[in-house]
């Protein structure tokens, strides 16, 4: 399915995509995980993760991207991420207030520091990435159903 010349773009685009799309996804994950240390954060990293899947869909066609991340899985993951962010917020009630940062702060400049901020970054990135991918998927499916 991946090497079908009728679907998607040309062979050059497909080869370059196969080499780079993993690196794009990895860069998005890096931006998310280091959101409390360097510029970036949940929203930007999530959009980069969504862009890697969009890249896959543009180069190889709809079916290859849907095999990696189907529409139902995208909807479920987005709802789970929204609930995750809300539960992190509710978790703060153990410390007395909504969104209270009660986990151990750790040493600054370490990867595992800053309490709930990396967890919130993870939840937001999952939500943004999967949500934007779902929007793009809905637009593509609509266009295909119009063409038929």
């Amino acid at each position, binding site marked *: 399915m991946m090497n079908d010349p009728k679907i998607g773009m040309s062979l050059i685009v497909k080869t370059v995509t196969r080499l780079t799309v993993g690196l794009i996804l990895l860069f998005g994950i890096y931006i998310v995980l280091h*959101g409390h240390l360097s510029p970036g954060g949940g929203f*930007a990293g999530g959009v980069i993760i969504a862009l890697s899947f969009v890249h896959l869909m543009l180069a190889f066609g709809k079916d290859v991207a849907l095999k990696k991340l189907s529409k139902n899985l995208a909807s479920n993951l987005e709802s789970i991420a929204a609930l995750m962010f*809300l539960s992190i917020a509710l978790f703060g009630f153990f410390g007395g207030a909504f*969104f209270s940062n009660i986990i151990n702060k750790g040493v600054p400049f370490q990867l595992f520091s800053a*309490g709930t901020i990396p967890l919130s970054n993870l939840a*937001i990135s999952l939500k943004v990435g999967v*949500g934007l991918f779902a929007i793009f998927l809905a637009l593509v499916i609509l266009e295909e*159903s119009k063409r038929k």
Partner: protein
Amino acid sequence: MELHLLLLFMIVGALIAVEAKDLLSSVVAVGAVGFALCLAFLILKAPDLAITQLVVEILCLIILIRATLRKDLPLVIKGRWFFNTLGTLAFIAVFLFFAHTALQELPGFGHPIMAVVKRYLQQGTAQTGAVNLVAAVILDFRAYDTLGEATVLFASVIGIMAVLRRPGRIK
């Protein structure tokens, strides 16, 4: 100086986007405006905003090009263009007048009132443990706003997937 050049470039790009004849040229001009805005954020020392603007602009361009590439809608202007132009110019004049009077009251560009922000800058790292103070503000001090933003995105995704679903069977 660079900022003024970028602003001039953005104004020219926006004018081209409005005046271009076909949609693809308009989309490319809008993309140029967005990337210039990204550079402006970088010059104003806001790298977080610059990264977000860059990636969101790329995604928007992909969606816009994908949506407009196949159908070229020609622009039709006829009829009451004189009154339309006159009304637009009058509205812009009124808007600029009120904006000018309102902006007199605000602190000058580059000289913000550092009342609350000073406390964040001094105690942010100690209170949250995050070195990136933007992350400390949006996910700890002002996390309610982020929750609202996440809710808005969730609602918009639900709305888009409800409006753009496959048409149902006709009995």
